[in-house]
């Protein structure tokens, strides 16, 4: 269940009255104004909106990469807006899996070593870590490419490795920022199919930002960022989504 | 180990050594080639290449921290290089400049230096009658000299230095015509008065005109300061030879050397033949300038070798630094380079452009390095010359030649630092360069 009016009660993720203001070149820009969101476990939500609408800002806030000007964000019972930076870092390691549009993989590490990165922060033994990594790479179907370097992988394969890394430590939810942004149609499809499987088969919670309506259509809910808050359904005509067919 | 195995091993080692030497030789050749070709190309790049130099200057400005680092690195190396060479040059100049080609030095045969020699008064009398010696109103222009070292405190540390003291004949200034009295007057014969060299006066305590000092067990008054044109004599103290023999408790009729003023520069041979063939004498005859030049060989070699080693090591380090900086600069500009080439500038132009940039940077570094050490010019320091056992004051001597060498050195470092990265940048496939984000 996904709500944007602040009326949800049993969400995994609960956002109330979220404000975020930037100062840019002497001006103050209110990107998010009183935003509310409730997301239950197992949901797959897509956020859409024109560039500059604050989609990435919202994602950064939900992932603990940024702090809001006002408001609260609660994930699995933890209120993260007032956590210290150190605690937030630890929280992220435990609860969030990130999939960015690019720069995800460390070029000097193999696919295997990249996926292992989140596990190095845990107390698991080497054998345990390797088991988890193998499993994750199995899920994304790249077991045969474990020891390749990112430059030896195609764009789509790189994103799948990223997904493996995002799920390897079994985080509470996944945040994707334009995961298919740089990919061709076929690779994009493969990646989306994988994400759908994570939601459908492995019951992961996924929040995704995208500008591509075809990609957004794969999610269970689509929310639009309009005037600093989330709205369900299509936005007002003067703010049409970028290109494509809905 | 069986003999056969030893033999095989020694052959293998010799082969390896030979290979290593060949590799080094090839490397050296490549480096020389790179410099000989790269330097003029780089300097002429603005005329040969079509990439506008404004691009280079703008790039330099955009990455000014890295540029400053490279410039300072090269400046430091060039500075040390020029400083060490000018130290050696100053030392050598002092000794090499000593003496006059119109004078000849006569010592006991086989003496490596004056201090080891011994010539009796009788021999002096024979020498005075020899052909080829100039004559003054009072007779042949010969100065028979006693040479020793006496302890005098250094102004800089307060501890004693072994200063060369030279007992001369009263007519010494007629023989050593390059010596001029700059302050005070010549000493009076038979009196314990001192005439001190200008460097000696600046380096050792108490050697000022009018000052009375106790030295070597005698009481002396300093009556004059002389200027010997920057030669080793400037570090000496002169006095009457009889007085010195007395004070040093040496036999009165024995001297260490005799210096004569030649009738003409060419009469050297006449004099030498006459003296060496005379059965009453056992002497060597050398031109004064040659003798002093020889006295400097050990020390000059030492300073040159040490200084050269230091400079060579620093040069390698500086080249590493330059290479590092240029590689980093080029890696940061990978996309720019790709764009340039995609737009149509050939690899050749890219190379020229970067070579030029490297040379501009290294030239700036070289100039700064040279400017930084210029204040050292004329700075006097002193050291002990092993060969004569005496302290020698000398000055850093920076000449245009040395500065030019410093600049050239900087440019060579620039070429070597810029050529490889430039070539690498130029041959990298354009697509790869453009893909870099």
């Amino acid at each position: 269940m996904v709500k944007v009016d602040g009326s949800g009660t049993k969400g995994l993720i609960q956002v109330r009255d979220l404000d975020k203001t930037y100062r840019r070149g002497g001006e103050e820009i209110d990107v998010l104004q009183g935003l509310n969101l409730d997301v239950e476990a197992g949901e797959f939500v897509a956020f859409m909106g024109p560039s500059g609408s604050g989609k990435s800002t919202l994602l950064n806030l939900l992932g603990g990469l940024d702090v809001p000007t006002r408001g609260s964000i609660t994930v699995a019972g933890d209120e993260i807006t007032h956590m210290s930076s150190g605690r937030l870092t630890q929280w992220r390691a435990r609860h969030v899996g990130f999939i960015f549009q690019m720069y995800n993989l460390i070029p000097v590490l193999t696919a295997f070593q990249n996926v292992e990165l989140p596990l190095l922060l845990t107390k698991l033994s080497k054998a345990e870590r390797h088991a988890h990594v193998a499993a994750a790479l199995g899920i994304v179907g790249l077991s045969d490419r474990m020891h390749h370097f990112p430059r030896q992988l195609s764009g789509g394969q790189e994103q799948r490795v990223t997904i493996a890394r995002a799920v390897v430590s079994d985080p509470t939810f996944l945040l994707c920022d334009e995961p298919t942004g740089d990919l061709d149609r076929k690779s994009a499809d493969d990646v989306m199919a994988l994400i759908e499987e994570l939601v459908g088969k492995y019951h992961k919670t996924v929040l995704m930002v995208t500008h591509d309506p075809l990609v957004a259509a794969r999610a269970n809910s689509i929310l639009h960022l309009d005037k600093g808050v989330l709205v369900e359904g299509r936005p007002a005509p003067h703010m049409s989504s970028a290109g494509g067919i809905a | 180990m069986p003999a056969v195995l030893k033999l095989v091993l020694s052959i293998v080692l010799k082969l390896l050594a030979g290979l290593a030497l060949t590799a080094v030789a090839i490397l050296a050749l490549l480096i020389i080639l790179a410099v000989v070709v790269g330097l003029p190309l780089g300097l002429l790049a603005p005329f040969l290449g079509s990439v506008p130099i404004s691009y280079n200057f703008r790039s330099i400005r955009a990455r000014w921290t890295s540029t400053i680092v490279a410039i300072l690195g090269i400046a430091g190396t060039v500075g040390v290089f020029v400083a060490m060479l000018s130290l050696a040059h100053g030392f050598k100049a002092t000794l090499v400049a000593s003496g006059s080609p119109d004078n000849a030095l006569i010592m006991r045969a086989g003496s490596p230096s004056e201090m080891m020699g011994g010539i009796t008064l009788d021999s002096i009398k024979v020498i005075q009658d020899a052909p080829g010696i100039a004559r003054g109103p009072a007779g042949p222009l010969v100065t028979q000299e006693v040479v020793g070292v006496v302890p005098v405190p250094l102004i800089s540390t307060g501890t004693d230095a072994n200063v060369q003291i030279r007992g001369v004949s009263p007519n010494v200034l007629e023989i050593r015509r390059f010596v001029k009295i700059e302050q005070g007057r010549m000493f009076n014969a038979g009196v314990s008065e001192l005439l001190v060299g200008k460097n000696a006066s600046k380096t050792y305590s108490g050697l000022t005109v009018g000052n009375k000092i106790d030295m070597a067990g005698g009481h002396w008054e300093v009556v004059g300061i002389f200027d010997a044109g920057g030669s080793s004599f400037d570090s000496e103290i002169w006095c009457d030879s009889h007085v010195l023999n007395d004070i040093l408790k040496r036999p009165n009729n024995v001297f260490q050397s005799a210096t004569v003023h030649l009738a003409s520069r060419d009469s050297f041979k006449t004099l030498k033949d006459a003296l060496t063939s005379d059965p009453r004498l056992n002497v060597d005859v050398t031109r004064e300038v040659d003798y002093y030049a020889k006295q400097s060989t050990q020390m000059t070699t030492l300073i040159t070798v040490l200084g050269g080693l230091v400079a060579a090591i620093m040069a390698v380090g500086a080249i590493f630094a330059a290479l590092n900086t240029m590689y980093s600069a080029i890696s940061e500009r990978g996309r720019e380079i790709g764009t340039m080439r995609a737009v149509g500038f050939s690899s050749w132009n890219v190379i020229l452009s970067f070579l030029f940039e490297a040379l501009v940077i290294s030239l700036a570094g070289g100039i700064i390095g040279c400017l930084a050490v210029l204040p050292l010019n004329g700075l006097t320091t002193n050291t002990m010359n092993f060969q004569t056992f005496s302290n020698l004051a000398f000055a850093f001597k920076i000449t245009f030649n040395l500065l030019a060498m410093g600049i050239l050195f900087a440019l060579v470092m620039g070429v070597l630092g810029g050529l490889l990265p430039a070539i690498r940048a130029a041959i990298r496939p354009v697509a790869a360069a453009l893909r870099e984000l």
Partner: protein
Amino acid sequence: MKFARIIFANLLRKKVRLLLTIGSFAVALFLFAFLSVVNDAFQRGSDVAGADRLVIINRTSIINTIPLSYRDKILRIPGVKVITHNNWFGAIYKDEKNFFPQFVIDPENQRQVFTELLVSDDQWNAFLKDRQGAIVGARTAERFGWKVGDRVPLMTTIYGSGTWEFNIDGIYHGKNPLDDETQFWLQWDYFQEHLSDRNKGQVGWYVLRLNSPDDAVGVSKAIDDEFDNSPYETRTETESAFAAGWVKQFGNIKILIISIGSIVFLTLLLVTGNTMAISVRERTPELAVFKAIGYSDRTVLFFVLAESLIIAVIGGALGLLVSIGIVPLIAQKLGGLLPALILSPSTLVLGLILAVFVGIISGVFPGLNAMHMRVVNALRRV
């Protein structure tokens, strides 16, 4: 250590740059070792000089002699344990370039005064019986390939002209690594035979051993007072003071060396710091991903510092190792021009410390930048 793979993978990212930076450290540390060695060579005399030994020279001039007859008078001064005398022989072996110090010694007391210069009793006894005998220091013997039993000609320059021949009866070694092993010792008696009467019975200088180092000042004064106003006035000081004074005559070697060394290290610091900064700048987005995944700011700082330190230690160690190999070669080439060039362990330790220091400083600023970098800024879409 789990993060080792990450750190090393990052180091090997650009191999050429890695090699060049390591090379820079190696060169700088090699130069440091070389400069230290030269500095040590000049300072050496004053360090090993015995604290309980005094040197007595002629006050008028160091090249003037002192009578042998003074010896008994000196021995009577309280505090003097044993005394020996030396003369500078200063001859040439084949070529002036083959310089090494030659001393006429007093065999009876030489070993009691110079207790750190060791000769086997057999060789010493053979020497005592051989008027034309000579004892050579190990270094000089090695330099010319001399062995016990060889006959060596020396061409004198000070004592008339002519060649004197000596039989090598023994080779001495220094007890400590820094002791002088270049000297050539010959017999007083043989020396005296060849001098004119006028020159007999004169020594170049005395060296004596005190009962206790505390007596140094008192005994020095007593000796100089004893011979004050005599035809041969003396100047007595401790061996270390004498050596130190000698070193000071070489001018500002120390200052020169420290200046050069400082310039070198500053330059190294600049260059390495810049390289680290560039390397970190290039990786900003990757470091941001680390932070996003949950690596703390301090861990990221640690990554950068670790890299910097590894380069510093490897490069520094390499440079120092090379110096261990090359310094002896240079020492050979310079032959007699400089006293022994020896690399002391303290130089190596100091060098490593300096390398680490430079490594830390050059890594700390880029590291702090990486630490404070905000993920959201770094990952802003291009």
